[in-house]
């Protein structure tokens, strides 16, 4: 028997489709601002010399999801498509869809999702391009929770929140941007239900207190309030959630507005009545209501809602409707609990992170360094480029074709491909993107240098971020600054001691002079 024929003859049933949102990354400017007209997509910024888009894609592949819709701004489309098609073959089918968005006019994630609703016909997973999952949390565990609960409970969506690693205060300068505050959430640890997410609107309305509904506490008397968890922006949702989204045109951000609103539907009666039918359509979905009514573990859901009504009205003991065993009644959609499940990842040894701020980008790079073991490259061509008298510590990563000259010292850094590090340079704790040039005697300390940055002779940079293509002149010295090209082009004067707004004019461009090719 030819088994290969028989299995491929069945039509592909896509259970989930993944939607990866690649935004502009305004928090990561100036790294993510284009360098000289060339866009620098946030999704392609590297973590340990791998574009950060790799991580969620690998995670998806591991979980068995095959279809991916990647949504990116129009300006980045070419770069990202090129990367995807040239990267090593994966079993994912990735569709890149551009969305009209510029850096200044940012579009909310809700609008994007509304726009692409027609592409999504089944249950879907939303992922950000910057989420780096820990190895101990496979996506299939979140998917399994969703699969189990959407049938047995009528769960609408499952989210994932994690405890971020906090660096000690004061090590990262304030000029790099505000440290991300975690939002307080209320969740039920036993059933894994997300109950309340504090939104910025709530904070505006009442900054001192968190307001919770009594109906929430009646349903879930034992909950936990936590404010040190961060949203991973990974949401597994039912298709009907998109219909509900269409009914809320004013919402802008999934994370800040839509998800907190979705959490409220499960316990607020008015919302439930209005949106309940939209959220649980009875067509095209397998519902096991008859089986669930016969199941010995689990009280029937309509029993709970009846109890709820009864307790509000008179204590009418005879107010009971025993579940009917006939199959005609399995179209009752109102039984569903409409909860939002949540998976909390609290493992401190393997932590998850979102690389959407400069702090986290640096931290992520560093966490990969702890696992790195740098040795001389095996490729003789690459090895020839690295001078034997250079001191490269074993916890750094040096990309291919990078030239390192003698008596340089590289410690705890990530250096991209095709860079050139001159003599006696000292690089400690930095992240250098591809094609950087560092001339002799330069000293770099905890910096992130964009692509094609050039640091002149004997320059000293400490805790700086440069935009791609910047040039630091010889002997320049900067501390705690974000260096952007616009200042250089405008020919502004150098001024030290400014605070970290983007007025600094020092540009150190280190073009990739040794290799003429410019890779996207």
């Amino acid at each position, binding site marked *: 028997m030819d088994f290969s024929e028989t299995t491929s003859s069945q039509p592909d*049933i896509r259970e989930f489709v993944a939607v990866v949102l690649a935004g502009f990354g305004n928090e990561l400017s100036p790294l993510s601002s284009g360098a000289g007209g060339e866009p620098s997509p946030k999704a392609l910024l590297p973590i340990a010399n791998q574009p950060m888009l790799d991580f969620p894609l690998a995670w998806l592949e591991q979980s068995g999801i095959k279809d991916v819709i990647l949504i990116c701004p129009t300006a980045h489309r070419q770069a990202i498509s090129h990367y995807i098609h040239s990267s090593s073959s994966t079993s994912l089918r990735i569709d890149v869809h551009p969305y009209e968005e510029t850096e200044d006019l940012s579009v909310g994630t809700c609008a994007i999702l509304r726009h692409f609703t027609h592409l999504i016909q089944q249950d879907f997973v939303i992922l950000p391009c910057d989420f780096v999952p820990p190895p101990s949390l496979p996506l299939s565990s979140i998917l399994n929770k969703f699969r189990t609960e959407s*049938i047995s409970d009528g769960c609408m969506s499952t989210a994932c929140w994690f405890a971020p690693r906090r660096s000690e205060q004061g090590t990262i300068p304030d000029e790099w941007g505000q440290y991300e505050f975690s939002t307080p959430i209320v969740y039920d640890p036993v059933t894994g239900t997300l109950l309340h997410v504090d939104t910025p609107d709530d904070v505006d309305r009442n900054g001192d207190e968190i307001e919770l509904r009594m109906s929430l506490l009646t349903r879930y008397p034992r909950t936990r309030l936590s404010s040190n968890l961060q949203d991973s922006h990974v949401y597994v949702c039912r298709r009907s959630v998109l219909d509900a989204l269409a009914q809320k045109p004013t919402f802008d951000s999934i994370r800040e507005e839509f998800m907190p609103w979705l959490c409220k539907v499960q316990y607020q009666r008015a919302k439930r009545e209005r949106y309940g039918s939209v959220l649980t359509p009875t067509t095209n979905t*397998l519902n*096991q209501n008859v*089986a*669930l009514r*016969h199941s*010995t*573990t689990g*009280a029937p859901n309509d029993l709970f809602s009846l109890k709820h009504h009864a307790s509000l009205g008179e204590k009418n003991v005879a107010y009971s409707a025993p579940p009917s065993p006939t199959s005609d009644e399995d179209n009752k959609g109102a039984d569903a609990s409409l909860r939002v499940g949540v998976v909390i990842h609290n493992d401190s040894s393997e932590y998850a992170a979102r690389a959407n701020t400069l702090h986290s980008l640096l931290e992520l790079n560093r966490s990969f360094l702890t696992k790195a073991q740098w040795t001389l490259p095996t490729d003789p061509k690459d090895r020839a480029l690295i001078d034997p008298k250079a001191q490269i510590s074993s916890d750094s990563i040096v990309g291919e074709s990078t030239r390192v000259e003698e008596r340089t010292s590289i410690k705890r850094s990530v250096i991209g491909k095709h860079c050139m590090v001159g003599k006696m340079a000292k690089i400690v704790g930095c992240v250098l993107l591809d094609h950087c040039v560092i001339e002799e005697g330069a000293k770099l300390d905890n910096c992130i240098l964009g692509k094609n940055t050039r640091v002149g002779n004997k320059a000293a940079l400490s805790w700086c971020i440069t935009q791609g293509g910047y040039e630091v002149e010889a002997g320049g010295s900067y501390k705690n600054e974000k260096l952007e090209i616009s200042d250089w082009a405008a020919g502004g004067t150098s001024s030290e001691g400014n605070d970290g707004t983007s007025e600094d004019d020092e540009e150190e461009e280190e073009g990739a002079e040794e290799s003429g090719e410019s890779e996207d």
Partner: protein
Amino acid sequence: MPSAVVPLPEAAGQSSAPPGTLPAKSQKQMTKAERREMQERQRAAKAEKATQNQSKNSPKSSNKPAQTSKEGALAPRRASKAADLAPKGFQGAGGQSKDVKASGEDKSAHTRGLRIFSHFGLPKPTAHKGEVHPTIVRLGLQFSEFKITGANARCIATLTAFKTVIQDYVTPPNNTLSRHLMTYLSPQISYLVSARPMSVTMGNAIRQLKLDISGTDIDLPEQDAKDALCDKIDTYIRDRIIAADQVIEETAGNKIKDGDAILTYARSSVVEKVLLAAYADGKQFTVTVVDSRPMLEGKKLLEVLSFAGIQCTYLLLPAVGSVITEISMVLVGAHSLHSNGAVFSRAGTALVAMMAKQHLVPVVVCCETYKFSETVQLDSFTRNELAPVELFNSFPQNKQQDLSSLSDQPNLQILNPLYDLTPPSSITAVVTEVGVIPPSSISSIPLALGRTML
């Protein structure tokens, strides 16, 4: 004649011998059986050692096997010597296997040390294959997470899922639906079995489905054939489960009189329906719900019944003896019915039935005919199922960490057998949709239904 009472072995340097070793018997017999037993144990211990050596490279565990192999070598030598050393050898070997057990810290060595029920094994984690339909994947998760439990519920869930699978199925060219659909469904079924062992009801339903599939007309267009199959599935559910339940409700309801005190064990969907229907009919009775760990299904039944307005009492299984004198009838459900009249049901039912029989309380089993199994079952050890420890807390716990600390104890194994067998002698009558029959005539059910095979 030297008796079997000998001082504990000092040379072996063991911990005290396992309690409950063989009582004093004739030593010659003991020696032979001992030797055989010892050899078995050593073989098992060597197998454990071999895998332990592979999995653990720590010198500690390699020392222990070396030590135990030395003792193992010593023990048979001892046994072949004078008879009064035989008990020593036995204790030595017993201690040796205990040592091996204690040194294995990983869970797999742990479960291999299961003495009872080791032949069921614990359900293995399911490997997700590409050709399994997503509905079946979800169903498997419902089963393995124990969200859908109960013979009726599982069967209905399986058949409903298969309806979706059949509708999504496309016959490949050069093939007929009646032949190819079977091969398409087989991996789905084995996926479900790997999630949780199949129940008798599921087996019967799938057998009927296979019969229907092979009986489809070849000339029928594909969509019509699929619709016909889905119709047949619906008919099966409707006739043999739902309608049967209604007949049973009536029949068993007639047995309930005003002022009765009914006892039921755990939660059966049929018994629940019977009680609710009888109450809706206006009969006045009280219900005693007996429950047991780990699943505590009785709590949900209690919720449903008391919400309906029935006066209920709730107690745990060990307390049955104190209330049985006030009970007028025991009503239980079944997982399956066997040809010798035995009822396979939730673990604990046998106790309740036997206790009731002792006190001359009639035991009525409510069971649909599709739960009938042709096999003969004499005890609950040969076929059973173990519930996973992580899902059910076997011990009452106040704090979260109690469970994990319990399952990590090297000398503690938690076993949750889910089913037990009630012998026909404890059962008064079985109520099915074809009538009320005594357990001895259960094998006549297929005849009553008018077919040779169920």
